[in-house]
């Protein structure tokens, strides 16, 4: 082997390894970035508590970073944090929040008292207020609406040939989420709904498949399942 051949061989090897590396990279699934709070800034001397908005911080003077707060102190800290948060909000948002919060507290109080008054010692007391029910409903509706949007929009889905989900599945018809999991010979395994969603994205729609935890995947599942509310669950039905 002369020098030229050797150089050629080296070039080929380098090229091949780059190609292999690249193809490996394509197969690897990108981790999904879920919303994360920025860590609270601390000097390491005292405890810093962060509000669930991930932005509002409070340094608790005289308490070490690993020290435990007693319930009373914790409530004070919590109140202070909420006050800080409220101060940052536009007036109408702050007022609406205060009103909602007050209503929920009053409601919780009355329902608890009513429940206690009517209880025969057998019934359980539930402390959920109408605000809880409303927020559950609202958040789910948002997820379903997002799924609805993706389901009907080829570009949002990532389709490269104009084919959206709803083109074959109006109102998610014939998606039969109630029949999963089931063995799907073409996938060579027991398929979940998301496997079929990804199959459809990759094949009829010629798009890139979604990570199982991708917000889009979760929303599509939410929409499909919501369309089949009340249908009997029959895993394995073909």
């Amino acid at each position, binding site marked *: 082997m002369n020098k030229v051949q050797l150089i050629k061989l080296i070039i080929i090897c380098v090229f091949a390894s780059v190609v292999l590396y690249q193809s490996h990279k394509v197969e690897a699934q990108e981790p999904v970035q879920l919303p994360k709070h920025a860590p609270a800034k601390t000097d390491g001397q005292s405890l810093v508590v962060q509000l669930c908005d991930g932005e509002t911080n409070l340094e608790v003077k005289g308490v070490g970073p690993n020290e435990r707060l007693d319930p009373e102190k914790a409530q004070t800290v919590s109140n202070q944090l909420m006050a800080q948060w409220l101060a940052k909000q536009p007036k109408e948002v702050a007022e609406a929040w205060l009103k909602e919060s007050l209503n929920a507290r009053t409601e919780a109080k009355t329902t608890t008292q009513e429940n206690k008054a009517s209880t025969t010692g057998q019934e359980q007391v539930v402390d959920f207020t109408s605000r809880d029910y409303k927020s559950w409903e609202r958040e789910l509706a948002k997820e379903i609406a997002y799924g609805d949007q993706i389901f*009907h929009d080829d570009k949002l889905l990532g389709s490269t*040939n*104009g*084919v959206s989900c*709803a*083109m*074959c*599945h*109006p*109102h998610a*018809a*014939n*998606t*039969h989420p109630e*029949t999963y999991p089931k063995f799907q*010979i*073409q996938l*060579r395994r027991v398929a979940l709904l998301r496997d*079929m969603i990804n*199959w*459809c994205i990759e*094949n*009829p729609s010629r798009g890139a498949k979604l990570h199982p935890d991708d917000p889009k995947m979760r929303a599509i599942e939410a929409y499909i399942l919501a369309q089949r509310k009340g249908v009997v669950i029959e895993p394995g039905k*073909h």
Partner: protein
Amino acid sequence: MIPLKWEKRLQEYLKERENWLKELYQTGSTWEGRRKFLKMSAMAAGFAATQSFVPHSFQLVDVVNAATPDSKQQAFTFAYISDSHLYEKTLNERFVRQLERAVADINALDPQPDFVLYGGDLAQLGQPGELKLGAQILKQVKAPLKMMVGEHDWFLDMGDLWKELFGKHYYSFDHKGVHFITLMSVNEKDFWTAKNLSPMQRMQIVSGLDDGRQSAFEVGVEEREWLARDLANIPKTTPIVVFSHSPLYKLYRPWNFWTDDADEIQALLQPFQTVTVVHGHTHQVLTNRIGNIHFHGMLSTAWPWPYAPQGLPKLTMQMNRPDPFNQTEGLGDGIIDVLGNGRVNKRYDLWNRNPMSVTAKYLDSNGQEDLPAKTSLPSY
């Protein structure tokens, strides 16, 4: 990176699968087995297999009924292709290939049909590139072509280009003793002006089957008056065949499987002894009978629709639920034999499945005789 022991277990599992599949195929000498095998081979070969276009022609198995001695017109056959929903070729080659496949099917018919009906929705979004591409492909049809318009062709420019390419959007003609009427049955009441929508926004709303922002399909006053005038001088014994994109009856409003003035149209047609409506839009085997009128849906070449969750006509024998792993399943084209008595036998040439025949006898006997093959996998 999968840990080694899992990798080993996966390999073992796949090997086990492989053997099981082999066994399955060894017993697969039946049609069903062969179909499964073909699907699997296609999967294994990746999509390379679907990239090459193989024209597929069907053996004509249907017996064309000879005219009875006292019949007024001779029996004949016409073919149909419908609902191709073309995008431009650079965006979606598959839909283009599928229309080409239907054209090849029809051109391979021997003897050739008297004419070919195109059932509407040639384009997906009414774009000039889509309609012109469709026109170019349909030029290859050997038999004379009768064009019908669908909502996907219409709502970008309200039919301007379609009319320029294909002529009148509603018309009638006579052929071998049968009076044919082609309707434009996908008019909608103006939902766009008040909302100040652009032509493209209007088109996109109409193109969404389950988009509730649109109006219901209708034939409309102008065309109904034309129809009444057209039918005025036709003897009541003359067989009538109506082509309509929407079904001309009220099936399922949320998907516009619906014609809002269906009652008025049916009233105009009821005095005639023998009436058949052939419609597009529903992308499935669909059969109905209302009084004297027989209704037949057409297959699409683009994608199949599920059956409506409510209101399916009793006479409809569903086609099998399409297999999502085979992208031409539930699609196809077909022929319509016009019999000596002016009734029709409708044949659905489903790609990848046995053809389905829905005969005049089945409809005339209210589903008592000549039943089409039952579905083994109904719609969910």
